[in-house]
């Protein structure tokens, strides 16, 4: 009887611990709870300049600028809700031998990506 009691108690403790840890891991793995956002090119290897804002913060207002060398060639504001990935298409001409930098700001955070075409 006592052996069974030890086995049952151990199984119960392990089960409770595992459920708690699984739930905890699930919460930690939720990227929307991390307050981070990412900026990246839709196609990283070609000459296209279309980019993506992936938002996992509560701040939904993003301002973007495209700079060609030191000149702003295009800019805009975009609303990206938490947990949403927004593609921003960019069409540009006369792009050869120039550096294009995409700067995105949200609140007091800023990120940039660039291509030397």
């Amino acid at each position, binding site marked *: 009887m006592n*052996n069974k009691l030890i086995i049952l108690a151990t199984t119960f403790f392990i089960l409770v611990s595992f459920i*708690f840890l699984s739930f905890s891991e699930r919460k*930690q793995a939720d*990227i929307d709870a991390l307050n*981070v956002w990412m900026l990246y090119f839709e196609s990283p*290897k070609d000459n296209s300049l279309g980019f993506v804002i992936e938002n996992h913060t509560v701040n939904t207002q993003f301002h973007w600028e495209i700079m060609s060398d030191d000149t702003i060639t295009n800019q805009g504001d975009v609303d990206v809700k938490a947990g949403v990935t927004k593609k921003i298409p960019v069409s540009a001409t006369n792009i050869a031998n120039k550096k294009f930098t995409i700067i995105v700001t949200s609140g007091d955070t800023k990120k940039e*990506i660039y291509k030397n075409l």
Partner: protein
Amino acid sequence: MFDFFSSQLAFYLAILIAGFIPGIFLILATRMYRQFSMLELFVLSFGSSIVVIDFLLILLGRSPFAITRFSVLATIAFFSAACFAIHKHYQRKSETKISILKQIPDSKISRHSTFLVITLLFLTIFIKTIYFQDAIFPTATDLGHHMYWTKSIAVTGQLPVYEKAEITTSHQIAEPTPIADFIIGEHLFLAAIALISGAEFISAFPVLVLFLIHIMSVLAIFILARTFFKDSAHRNTISIVALFLIGPLFAIASPQAKFVSGGVIGNDIGNLLIPIIILLLLKAFAEKKSELLAYALFISLGLAYTHHLSTFVFIFLAFFALISYIALNIKTIKIDLRAWLKMLRSPAVPAIIAFAAIFIFLLYTPTYLNTKAIDTAVGAPSKATRTGLTFEQLKSTAGEARFAFAMIGIALLFLARNIKKYNQAFLIGWILSLTVMSLRPDWLFIDIPSNRVASYIVYPTAIVAAYMLVTILTAIKSAATKNKNHLSPLFLLATFLLLMSYVATSGLYDNAQSLNVSSSATDSIQTYAASQYLAKQITTEDVILKDHNYLSGDAWIKLFFMRDYNFPLSRGFFKRYEDETKVREQCTNFMISNPSTPAAQECFAGTRTNIIMIDPKIDSEQFRRSEKFWQVYSADAIGIFYKAL
């Protein structure tokens, strides 16, 4: 929420099917249930299941069938049915009407002891759970490496081919060559659970499985302590104190919870299988039962298919136990030798040896059984980390209080009269072998990291320290009862409290020192998100290089590509590039640290590396200065650069 509950249910079902069912049926077929108590059978069924799953999956991998959820379930069902048929056959032969449960011997644990054991198990699981709360999200390097091979079984449906493609001295990526660092038993059990449950690899599942293995190893020490001191009047007390010393105290430091969250799979399984093998051997030799010896050999074979270091430790342990036995029983050794030979000649033992030979020579040879790997482990210590620990370091590894009591306990063990001769020899052999292997590896011609060997010492230390502590306390109590001393009862109580405070403080301080400051999940999730992005973008022409020094969870990146164990290429710890014992490739360092130098350019050209993953706070400037690189991905914890020219 429904997803969460269904995945939980699938996981626990998988644990039951892979972790207990094969072992239970093996115990039925071999009639081991008549030899062990319910608690011992609980631990034995789990340990046996791990070994059975290993051999079943190796057989499945060598058959024309792929390793899938269906084939794994069918194989377990077939094995269980075969075992049940054998059990029924024996039952008909013996014509016994007694139920199996009634044939299981009672181990007689008193009500008070049961309450104490349950309380200690609760504390053990509770303390470790608190630690795992911040370590449950998978980020550990070793675990990432192991999960690559586990996932490869699930993805390909084949046994893994342990190979990796390395960079040559001419800066090319060579064809994959075999690696001896991994052993199949480390991956098959986890692969079976992943396949049956459908669990994600980047989830809590690997750490939870290792946690379960670890709790079982703690229970194994408890039942082993009961077996060692079977004839002692203080059997219950010694085993409970051993559980106290291995459970809630020193609960986090290596090789306990840290090895679980760190994903040191081989050690974790080894620390479960070694006590089980000792338990089987003690009973086999004491009761002269060859079927128990055969069962012990079967589990030992499982150990050999799981972890070379644990196997190595076990071989030395057995050797030292033999020497101890001969030294302590020199008068009866001739009679014992005859009894041992008789056991070895029984049909069960040669059958297991034949089974082992078939597996090793015909079905699957463990990766470490090659000349190069054996040369690496045997011989004079080749590095400073392999020349042995200092006494102070060994004390710290074993836990100060445990170590102090265990050292005095060993001396007492030699003189002990209330311990059976085999138990005495195994206990002395176990602790002495690990002490010598840790402090003076040159005496035994072993060339393996001393701190890894020393981590095994905590288990025998807990048992011997418990024995010593109980012996001291009972001696004081007995002296006081018989009024043989002139010490006041108050002083005796103070001594008892002082000793227990010393033990508890030492163990709890060790726990506090090992607790995590914070979880590394936030940065790792960004690493995984960037890896997912790249997995959708790259082709077979692209070669990725990532940094191991500053990126979190980088060992898991390879699970997003499943192209090669060495893909992406990795800039390792800086000290690795200054290794004086052998020439190391430098490309992975040059290509991140100084990407514009001619040496790095040669490396880029030779390896065709064109994508770099780095921590932007530390390593982005050198890429921004060069016109050849584009920054194509930006997050707080990770940046990706593309080499366009």
